[in-house]
């Protein structure tokens, strides 16, 4: 406004003499430090007024001057100018957005000189120049020059731009056979489920939800719902409303596509079967007993113990009916029955084939019985051997009493009677057949006695009682002696008279023990239905514990020649295992259970009481509480 005023001639300026400033449109601050503020038309300085109006003057002016509202200060000349009425009305008009000129008619009629209408006559009727339709000679000349230059090779076609390789094959170096290859990892987007009958506008009635189903559906969490919508029935397609869940569903689909894991997880796919150590199949481990072949019937009470003759022709069995029976193995014929004075706890055939003796223990006695079942020479030699005993000159105190039986006992086949102070629960022979060990049920230190038959001498090898002895056994080759107490097996060296090893069986109560014919492995059966295999070279802990039986084990046995061992249990079954022992010290024994043999019926909760192998054939005998002995071949 000020500029406008300053740069324009106003009638007021003419009134007070022309004091127009000529500095032009420059900031007046430039003249702040000068006494003048510019130059008038004659080039004379226009001086600033001596005294500027201060705030107070301004206020007084505002209060007193009625024309104050129409007074403007002109910075160019530092004068106050009172605006005229025309000027005021111009200001008002401009402020209200009207044209400044009062007389300007903004709605004057429009004169259309050049209209959009195509006119039939040209605006000018001048004919076209000739040159506009004649080929230009200059252009022709220029073109022919360029053609000539191209022909002469002066102008060469523009070289194609040597473009850098802007892109390259990202996967060129990829191995097509790689497991993580791109195409192998391709996971197609999951497909949407195709609509079913329940999506129909008119679904079959069985797809419509009943009232309860609908309530249940509504109460379910949206994630748990089987259907994401309620099937609805419409009479015609026309009445189907817009699908209200459309956006929602599309969104979910997008989420599915976007969040779907498009990466194949390389899970280590290990078949649990592969983690099991490879055991040979039982049919590759033939021969072993598979089927029950013979039943030896005759006993009237449970058969506690059985033993095979070294030749394998005869079987001796002892029973709670106070008899010892001798059987022909091949036919099941009971050849002899010998009455003894008590329930037979243990019976062992002398392992020496040159001696025909069976050790039978019942009550407090151990009887050496000649069954007369062998070569005539052998059993006569046995009788002579026992008869050839000469009394030693000086009587030694013996823990037991050796007796030659009376005549009626002698007729039964009894050859020697060893009377113990307490009842005897087990006897066992040394492999040479001269020494005999017996176990007494006693809590004192006299639990194990070793007898020498040829000298009729007995001794108690242990001074201290180290737990209740369950069974004892001689080592088949070396002078070792195995004593099984309730929880452990102690191995003694009989020559050095010292404890060699103590095998911890990890079970509550050992019931039976068998020594491998090689002598380096021991199996123990226990009443808590475990069978522990010890490798004496490996450790004093069991090399393997087999828990195949359901009830307490009563008897275990090794085969003499075949890699077999068997265990009999109160559950009425005999389990035959392949137990291969290698000469190579680096290779651990191979133990494979091969067969469960069933046949015995449970009587008084007792099943199999003893097992024994045939000395030459892969046959196993088991005696049971049902008063039978069974042969499995």
């Amino acid at each position, binding site marked *: 406004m000020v500029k406008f005023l300053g740069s324009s001639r106003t009638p007021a300026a003419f009134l007070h003499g022309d004091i127009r400033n000529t500095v032009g449109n420059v900031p007046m601050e430039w003249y702040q430090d000068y006494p003048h503020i510019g130059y008038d038309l004659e080039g004379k300085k226009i001086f600033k007024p001596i005294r500027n109006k201060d705030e107070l003057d301004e206020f007084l002016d505002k209060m007193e001057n009625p024309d104050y509202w129409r007074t403007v200060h002109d910075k160019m000349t530092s004068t106050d100018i009172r605006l005229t009425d025309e000027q005021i009305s111009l200001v008002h008009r401009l402020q209200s957005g009207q044209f400044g000129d009062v007389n300007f008619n903004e709605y004057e009629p429009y004169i259309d000189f050049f209209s959009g209408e195509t006119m039939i006559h040209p605006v000018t009727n001048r004919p076209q120049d000739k040159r506009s339709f004649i080929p230009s000679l200059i252009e022709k000349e220029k073109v022919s020059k360029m053609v000539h230059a191209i022909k002469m090779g002066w102008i060469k076609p523009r070289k194609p731009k040597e473009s850098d390789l802007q892109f390259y094959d990202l996967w060129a170096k990829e191995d097509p056979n790689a497991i993580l290859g791109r195409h192998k990892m391709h996971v197609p987007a999951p497909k949407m489920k195709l609509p079913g009958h329940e999506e129909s506008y008119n679904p079959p009635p069985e797809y419509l939800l009943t009232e309860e189903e609908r309530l249940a559906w509504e109460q379910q969490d949206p994630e748990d719902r089987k259907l994401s919508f309620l099937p609805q029935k419409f009479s015609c397609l026309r009445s189907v409303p817009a699908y209200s869940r459309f956006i929602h569903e599309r969104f979910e689909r997008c989420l599915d596509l976007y969040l779907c894991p498009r990466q194949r997880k390389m899970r280590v796919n290990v078949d649990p079967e592969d983690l099991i150590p490879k055991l040979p199949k039982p049919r590759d481990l*033939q*021969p072993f007993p598979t089927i029950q*072949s*013979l039943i030896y019937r005759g006993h009237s009470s449970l058969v506690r113990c059985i033993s095979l003759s070294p*030749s*394998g*022709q005869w079987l001796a069995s002892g029973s709670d009916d106070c008899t010892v029976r001798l059987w022909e193995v*091949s*036919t*099941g*014929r009971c*050849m002899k029955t010998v009455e003894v004075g008590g329930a037979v706890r243990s019976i062992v055939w002398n392992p020496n084939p040159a001696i025909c003796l069976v050790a039978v223990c019942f009550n407090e006695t151990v009887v050496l019985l000649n069954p007369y079942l062998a*070569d*005539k*020479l052998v059993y006569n030699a046995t009788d002579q051997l026992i008869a050839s005993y000469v009394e030693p000159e000086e009587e030694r105190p013996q823990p037991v009493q050796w007796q030659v039986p009376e005549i009626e006992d002698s007729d039964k086949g009894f050859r020697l009677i060893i009377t113990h102070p307490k009842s005897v629960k087990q006897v066992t022979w040394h492999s040479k057949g001269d020494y005999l060990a017996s176990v007494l049920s006693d809590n004192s230190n006299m639990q194990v006695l070793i007898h020498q038959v040829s000298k009729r001498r007995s001794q108690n090898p242990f001074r201290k009682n180290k737990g209740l002895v369950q069974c004892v056994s001689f080592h088949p080759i070396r002078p070792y002696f195995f004593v099984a107490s309730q929880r452990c097996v102690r191995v003694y060296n009989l020559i050095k008279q010292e404890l060699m090893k103590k095998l911890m069986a990890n079970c509550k109560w050992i019931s039976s023990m068998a020594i491998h014919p090689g002598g380096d492995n021991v199996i123990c059966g226990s009443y808590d239905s475990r069978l522990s295999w010890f490798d004496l070279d490996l450790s004093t802990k069991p090399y393997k514990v087999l828990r195949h039986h359901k009830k307490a084990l009563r008897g275990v046995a090794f085969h003499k020649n075949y890699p077999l061992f068997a265990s009999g249990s109160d559950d009425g079954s005999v389990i035959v295992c392949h137990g291969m022992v290698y000469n190579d010290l680096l290779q651990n024994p191979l133990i494979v259970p091969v067969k469960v043999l069933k046949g015995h019926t449970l009587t008084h909760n007792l099943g199999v009481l003893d097992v024994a192998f045939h000395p*030459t*054939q892969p046959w196993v005998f088991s005696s049971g509480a049902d008063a039978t002995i069974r042969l499995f*071949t």
Partner: protein
Amino acid sequence: MSQLQVRFFTENAKYKVDDVPFSIPAASQVQDLSNIINKLLEAKHSKICHSNVEFDFLVRGNFLRTSLVNHMEAEGISTEEVVEIEYVQRFMAPQPEECIMHDDWISSVDTESEWILTGSYDKTARIWTQEGKAVMTVAGHTDVVKDVAWVKRDGVTSLLLTSSMDQTAILWEWNVERNKLKARHCCRGHAGSVDSIAVSPNQTKFCSGSWDKMLKIWSAVPTDKEDELEEQRDRPRKKQKTEQMGLTRTPIMTLSGHIEAVSSVLWSDNEEVCSASWDHTIRLWDVETGNMKSTLTGSKVFNCISYSPLCRRLASGSTDRHVRLWDPRSKDGSLVLLSLTSHTGWVTAVRWSPSNEQQLISGSLDCVVKLWDTRSCKAPLYDMAAHEDKVLCVDWREDGLLLSGGADNKLYTYRYSASTSAA
């Protein structure tokens, strides 16, 4: 119903029919085919000459037991071509004849043309007539009689052999007319129970197999000379005399090689002995030189063997429930020609038919005696389930008498003949 083109043929000229193909229903059973043949024969001969005969049919050497089409399917025979069917007269089922009671288990049985000899667990052997009448009790062994054998018959005297668990075999002379029995020789030398004896075809020698793993060849000719026995020097001579039955005889030859008990011996001809053992082998021995000729190795304990000179096959019964047929001439030694499987227990006895080269019987611990035909190896021809306990011995006499004895103390005899007309 589908039809099959068949052509019938037979060896028996009496029952020959015209050699033309017939079209018969595929589901025909043996009975239907038998009716067809009978109709044809009736048409060929007059109705009076021909009486109804039961036939059995073989398709490619195997007995037909199911319907024809099933059998051909099982054998893999094409049903497109003309099927050649052989027919033979049906073997009649063995007819039970006698049941001879014993006092104890019967361990062995042997027959000759008239008499039956059985060995028993009561330490005796017995001679019976065919009708079941006890003629003679052969007592003398001190232990179970394990095997018996007839040696020969010379007019009114017969020679017989018994072997026992008391480690001896005794050669007896039995005078039939006076019914007198005399122990001629006591064959001593074995160190175990003598489980098996066999007399050579020319009846001059016999062989014994024992639990002591040895085979011994003895002379079967009775003499009055006693062989020297060195081993019993320390015993008083007099006592020995009183104990012994007959004169002591020592073996001509001992064949050793088995590593387990010998369970069964037989002579395949005059110079060759065959023995089966618990060591899973059958061995053939040359008696002249005493050498082992060949070994047939099985996988299980052998209980018994039998040899048929007609088909030159060995049949063995073993503890794995199979009857196996062997060719003893085969050089590679362990070729099983055929396994006959139907028993459910140990096979304790086998015996070839002396007259028919395809038939044998077997006895087993499962109490059943089975009659087999090698042309029908899947199932036996007949089961004889009379026994109530283990069958321990069987025998087959030339005239078609089958015998079986076992642990139920009974000896059953059956009459069996190949055809109705022959009976």
